[in-house]
């Protein structure tokens, strides 16, 4: 295969090169040389984005598998594979991110032998470890089908129910516990974000983002590979997303109200600007967009709404982990370029691996009725009219 230097490919290659250099700086000269973290800001963008957002962006799998396997919501079946792929890649990349962030990553296995059950971090660590294993087995059928290994495929499918239940249990625990990490800092985290309800909000935003991410990745892969889910499925996901966003927004409002913060959040301040940004992107714009039937029914409208919604919740997590501490600390934190490059490399790897998986594994249904957007790099495999959905019937 000849390498065609398109814009995105060149961008990807330069990101990876700078990422490798940054990784060298990180491991050869330490965290101090590679990052802007300090005694005042011990957690930077690697925790704020790579871990907090990474786990959130990978939340789709437990929602969709639960809906399909526990609630028998059949129309979501074609969504199962792409969300499991996203989640599996997401969690693997979260662990990669942790290997950069931990001061002594070579001792990460200490988690297994020195356990402190009082620590939220311990609980998150264990759940992430187990859930990544669960996701591995949920992802495995893609590979087994491709290699035509019938017997192991039957074994894995035999334990699907167990995997799904375990996946939901572990996800409920650690998605919310990521918020619980911050409960011990009532004096440090700004009152806009510190609330006893943090675990609930982290869970609620994970549900919203899980759905938005599914719409996003399907839309994106249709643009790049000409492969995607059918529009009616995306439309229904959009409907659910709208409801979930409303629930999230109302709960946030109630929380501000009960903690007497309503008067403060409308007053301009450094934190208020970031809060406004977050609320606008996470709630105001996506809810407004999705409220129009015309937008809710169009592929482009759904794509736009889901991307803005994702940006909003990413802002939310960065606010909790960075903005919310700046007043207490007394100065600002902004990631160093090497720090930023590592994060970008992780994100870019995620996109690339997703693309490879979509290209070589049976992730999306093969035949699609009327592509929504112009497929850019048409990589269509045999466009035989073979009954596609039958292939996924056993998921």
């Amino acid at each position, binding site marked *: 295969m000849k390498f065609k230097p398109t814009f995105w490919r060149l961008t990807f290659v330069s990101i990876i090169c700078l990422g490798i250099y940054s990784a060298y700086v990180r*491991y*050869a*000269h*330490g*965290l*101090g*040389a590679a990052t802007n*973290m*300090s*005694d*005042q800001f*011990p*957690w930077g963008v690697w925790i704020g984005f790579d871990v907090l957002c990474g786990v959130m962006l990978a939340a789709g799998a437990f929602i969709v598998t*639960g809906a399909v*396997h*526990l*609630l*028998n919501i059949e129309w979501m079946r074609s969504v199962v594979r792409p969300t499991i792929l996203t989640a599996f890649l997401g969690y693997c990349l979260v662990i990669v991110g942790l290997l950069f*962030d*931990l*001061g*002594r*990553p070579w*001792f*990460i296995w*200490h*988690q297994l032998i*020195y*356990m*402190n*059950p*009082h*620590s*939220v*971090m*311990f*609980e998150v*660590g264990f759940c992430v470890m187990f859930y990544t294993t669960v996701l591995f087995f949920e992802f495995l059928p893609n590979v087994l089908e491709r290699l035509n290994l019938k017997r192991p495929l039957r074994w894995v499918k035999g334990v699907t*129910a167990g995997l*799904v*239940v375990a996946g*939901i*249990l572990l996800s*409920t*625990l650690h998605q919310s*516990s990521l918020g*619980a*990490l911050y*409960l*011990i*800092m*009532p*004096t*440090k985290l700004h009152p806009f974000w510190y609330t*006893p309800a943090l*675990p609930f909000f982290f869970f609620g935003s994970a549900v919203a983002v899980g759905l938005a991410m599914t719409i996003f990745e399907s839309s994106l892969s249709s643009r790049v590979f000409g492969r995607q889910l059918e529009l009616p499925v995306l439309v229904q996901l959009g409907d659910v997303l709208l409801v979930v966003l409303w629930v999230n927004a109302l709960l946030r409002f109630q929380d501000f109200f009960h903690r007497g913060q309503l008067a403060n959040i409308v007053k301009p301040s450094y934190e208020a600007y970031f809060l406004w940004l977050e609320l606008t992107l996470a709630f105001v714009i996506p809810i407004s967009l999705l409220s129009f039937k015309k937008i809710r029914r169009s592929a482009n409208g759904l794509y736009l709404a889901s991307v803005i919604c994702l940006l909003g919740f990413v802002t939310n997590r960065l606010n909790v982990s960075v903005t919310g501490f700046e007043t207490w600390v007394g100065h600002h934190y902004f990631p160093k370029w090497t720090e930023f490059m590592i994060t970008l490399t992780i994100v870019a790897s995620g996109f690339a691996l997703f693309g490879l998986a979509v290209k070589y594994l049976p992730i999306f249904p093969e035949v699609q009725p009327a592509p929504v957007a112009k497929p850019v790099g048409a990589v269509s495999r045999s466009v035989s009219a073979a009954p596609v959905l039958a292939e996924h019937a056993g998921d």
Partner: protein
Amino acid sequence: MSKALLYDATICIGCKQCEVACAQQNKLPYNDEIAAEAVQSEHKYTVVLTKQDKFMRRLCMHCEHPACASVCPVGAFHKTAEGPVVYDVWKCIGCRYCMVACAFAQPKYEWHSLNPRVRKCIMCPDRVKAGQQTACAEICPTGATKFGERDELIKEAQNRILQNPSNYVPHIYGLNEVGGTSVLLLSSVAFDQFAYPKSEKLGDKPMPEYTAQVMSKIPDFIPLWSLVLGGVYWITHRREDVAAAEMEEKRKQGSAQ
């Protein structure tokens, strides 16, 4: 009984002997340059701050219910029976949750090391265990830093305030803050002038309780939620089985006719 340190800022003369002794005890570098640094760091566990003619020491508070010990995923921190909150470096994975969680921002990090450790005052645990004073208390020429039983030091602090009410802010910092600490402070000016968090903001509730409220629910939550999920699965799939069986029945009946 647990030991404690009582630091009385009104007696302190700002000689920084405690800084010197601390550096010696912990084998840290100390010179004029470091002496001039007015912040704690990986090489300066305690610092004497100066504001006009007032002094104030900063060091790890050695909380009765330390947040650092509660948040550490590998249990690298623990509070000893004698009072010091100590750190087991061989367990540490470097997640720095202790630094984020500490309300007094005491743990510092070796940011430029390739095998970094968390650094903070550990209240000379070996000396304390051997019945000696901490290095800083031993060297203090005026007795501003005093080592002793926590209960007795509290009584003494109360007496000092009673006898000289005009000399002191009527408050022993560390008596009840975050559930009490093993470092007690007396001062003639408000503690927050030296970046100590305001007492009313900290509250008397031990910090680990904020997470314990959630964590304590988990042992009940796991079996309950599994049961619900398993139950839902059973019900939805039972419905499918029944429907399939009924279809089969109908088909049979149809073919029999």
